[in-house]
């Protein structure tokens, strides 16, 4: 009965026109499905379990989902590069080619590493529940959709699926007012940029009659229009939307505040996944869809790349807060990645892909170490917190030094190869000036990476260092921005690190007083509540008189240590033995 009814229904639908539901190739979207399914499973487990599941259980679930997605991504890669060929799936909404699969694999790697890194943080701060990991998984699925999208609508949805979890993650730490501020800022500006992006899609659709990337490319290849203002406006607005996501100048304003305010592991995750998703779609859209307009967008990207490179490097130099410094560093890196796109050649795209791959691991590892050093409460991010780290925690200092040097482009690391590769691509496409500027900014940026390394390994003695510390605290307090919030933050700050820290720093009272004096002259706030905090964040007394016995109350969770170790190994091993990754990114070609 029901069957016949259904049959009749299907028949009537079929007879009313050519209505055929597209074939759904589940293997093509398996990585995304695994991540979304993992998130839902986690939420269900959290809701249904009578007792609270330990945080570690969610970490395991999240990492397992990441591993499963990684495996399915590799299977897809083999399918494309073995017997099969690149193909489009689900009514041409997705293009499954080497490029998209490479980004899918990268997203899966990011989610695995970042769930390990977040584990230590979540346990240290006593944040129970599956939400952090669930949001991270969903965000990574958005990045995968962006990477595989063959349709502007899918890119837009992927962008939103990726971004909204990032807004929430940025605002997740309710104990620090800056976190809420970061989330709000990111959300409002992100919503603006999304609106601009959609407007660009609408205009492009109006000009070309399709939202499908391949069809747009086909239309542009077959039609030369003398009057293409609509198309150019659309392309420009789409570019603005992308540049916002990847934090390129002049759309970078949100980056320092959001990176600083967000919980540190979320910052690392955000820095990695937003660049992965953003660049995946940006490279595909501009290199393949708007390929026939290359002469139009290349100069624009030239200017954007120069601005991004220079501003990121120069402003990074004057930061006293390590998270903020790395925010500017990430802007600088975005400029380097744009170099590959600006070259508008196949090797340029490979170079950009390589750089994104390398950068994701570098930034995850760096922020993992910053998470550990931020200590309970996630507040100690002034550069002074790193003084003497090499004596107290040699391995941690070594790992951080390796990651920072790799970001600076030291040889025998992936960072060096990435920079080399994009600059080479720029030179090949005769953008000599851009290549020179990029190398110069790389040298400038090395300054602030090396400063952290020197602080970690240096002795840090004398009055100069002390005044330095004071200024640093002043800057730290000042950057907390809203006076009320900064004031409210202080008791908490003292309290959060009091159990372990206060005892050790007690002898450094004099140094603390000096520091707080400097803070007062810096004209920020009332001195009284600052005093305990100044002694705390700037171990000025301890730093002034070298005392190797000083043990900072870090707790380096084993999971976080694993995450850091993975990123460092990736950086070093593939830096010395670059063959496999080079082969990988070269094979990751675009379908169209």
């Amino acid at each position, binding site marked *: 009965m029901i069957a016949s009814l259904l049959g009749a229904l299907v028949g009537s639908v079929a007879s009313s026109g050519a209505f055929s539901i597209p074939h759904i190739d589940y293997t093509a979207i398996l990585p995304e499905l695994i991540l979304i399914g993992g998130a839902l499973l986690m939420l269900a487990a959290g809701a249904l379990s009578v007792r609270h599941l330990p945080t570690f259980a969610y970490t395991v679930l999240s990492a397992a989902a990441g591993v499963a997605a990684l495996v399915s991504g590799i299977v897809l890669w083999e399918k494309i590069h073995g017997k099969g060929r690149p193909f489009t799936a689900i009514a041409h909404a997705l293009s499954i080619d080497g490029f998209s699969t490479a980004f899918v694999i990268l997203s899966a790697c990011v989610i695995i590493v970042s769930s390990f890194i977040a584990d230590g943080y979540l346990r240290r701060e006593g944040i129970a529940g599956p939400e952090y990991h669930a949001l991270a998984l969903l965000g990574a699925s958005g990045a995968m959709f962006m990477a595989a999208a063959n349709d502007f609508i899918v890119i837009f*949805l992927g962008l939103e699926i990726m971004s*909204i979890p990032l807004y*929430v993650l940025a605002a997740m730490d309710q104990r620090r007012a800056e976190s809420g501020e970061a989330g709000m800022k990111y959300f409002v500006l992100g919503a603006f940029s999304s609106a601009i992006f959609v407007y660009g899609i609408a205009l492009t659709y109006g000009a070309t*009659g399709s939202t499908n990337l391949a069809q747009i490319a086909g239309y542009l290849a077959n039609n030369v229009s003398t009057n293409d203002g609509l198309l150019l*406006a659309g392309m420009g607005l789409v570019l603005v939307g992308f540049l916002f996501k990847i934090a390129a100048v002049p759309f970078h304003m949100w980056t320092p505040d959001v990176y600083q305010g967000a919980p540190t592991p979320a910052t690392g995750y955000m820095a990695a996944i937003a660049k992965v998703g953003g660049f995946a779609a940006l490279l595909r859209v501009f290199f393949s869809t708007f390929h026939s307009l290359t002469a139009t967008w290349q100069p624009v990207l030239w200017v954007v790349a120069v601005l991004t490179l220079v501003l990121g490097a120069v402003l990074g130099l004057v930061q006293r807060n390590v998270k903020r410094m790395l925010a500017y560093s990430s802007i600088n890196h975005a400029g380097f990645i744009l170099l590959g796109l600006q070259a508008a050649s196949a090797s340029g795209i490979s170079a950009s892909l390589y750089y994104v791959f390398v950068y994701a691991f570098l930034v995850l590892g760096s922020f993992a170490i910053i998470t550990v050093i931020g200590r309970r409460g996630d507040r100690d991010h002034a550069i002074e917190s790193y003084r003497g780290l090499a004596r107290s925690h040699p391995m941690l200092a070594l790992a951080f030094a390796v990651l920072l040097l790799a970001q600076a482009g030291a040889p025998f690391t992936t960072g060096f190869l990435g920079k080399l590769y994009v600059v080479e691509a720029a030179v090949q496409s005769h953008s000599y000036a851009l290549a020179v500027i990029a190398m110069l900014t790389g040298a400038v940026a090395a300054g602030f990476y090396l400063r952290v390394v020197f602080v970690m390994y240096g002795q840090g003695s004398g009055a100069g260092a002390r005044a330095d510390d004071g200024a640093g605290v002043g800057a730290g307090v000042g950057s907390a921005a809203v006076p009320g919030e900064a004031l409210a933050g202080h008791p908490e700050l003292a309290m959060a690190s009091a159990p372990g820290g206060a005892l050790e720093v007690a002898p450094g009272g004099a140094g603390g007083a000096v520091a707080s004096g400097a803070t007062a002259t810096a004209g920020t706030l009332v001195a009284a509540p600052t005093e305990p905090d100044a002694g705390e964040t700037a171990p000025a007394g301890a730093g002034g008189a070298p005392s190797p016995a000083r043990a900072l109350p870090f707790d380096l969770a084993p999971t976080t240590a694993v995450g850091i170790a993975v990123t460092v190994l990736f950086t070093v091993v593939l830096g010395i033995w670059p063959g496999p990754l080079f082969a990988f990114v070269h094979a990751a070609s675009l379908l169209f």
Partner: protein
Amino acid sequence: MHGALAGGLLATATVPDALTFAVAAIISVVGALGVVLSRNPVHSALMLIMTLFGVAVLFVEEDAQFLAAVQVIVYAGAIVVLFLFVIMLLGVDRNESIAAEPMPAQRWLAVALGVLGLAEVILLARGKWPTGAHTVAGPLHGTGQANVAVLGRSVFTSYLLPFEITSALLVIAVIGAVVLARRPRGSGEDVDPSIGPRVDSGEIVAGGGGSAGRGGAGAGAGSAGAGSAGAVSPEQSIQAERAAGELVTAGEPFGAVLKEAEGVSIVQRRES
């Protein structure tokens, strides 16, 4: 010239079309002016419904029935109701002092950007831009198929994947809302003193000086207190509102302002 343009447009249309267009256009423009010019925020929101309704009529006129229905259901039905909800929650009779402009440049900037946007729209509308061959939903005046049918078809064929992955977005929205709305756990050393103990409505006095909370939290509690004190005369509750408002906007050290707020709520308590 504009008259000529309008005349040209109207000349090609039939009389009922032209009439419908004129009426709907007047409705939407009057509504838009009302949104900007009316002093009462509730009136502004209601005027917005008028504008949206006028635009919906224009959509019907353009054979975009689905869009018209969505316009009414989503914008007039849901979004404006949300606006009203927020306005009511913040207090309808609250007087915003519009004279004190926090950003003096923004009025001129708004005018400039508005002119720029209008110029852009006119420019885009007047040029003869080449467009791609086939639109997805079919040409404007009929392939013989209804607008909704064509739309439904494309949602389940060429836009199947986007349609489905929208569900992920909804899940994210729910999780995000829950995560952000949830308060940190009640007591214990985990709680930040800067967030302060939770102050329930009408209980500001109990919090005392110790509850020198953040501006936002204190203000929220203050306005909640004012709202919930049912027996209090309206002037006083407005007063409390203002005190609470100052808490937010002034952003100065809270001690003094908070005491004001407390003073008001003490008065309220005595009266109730």
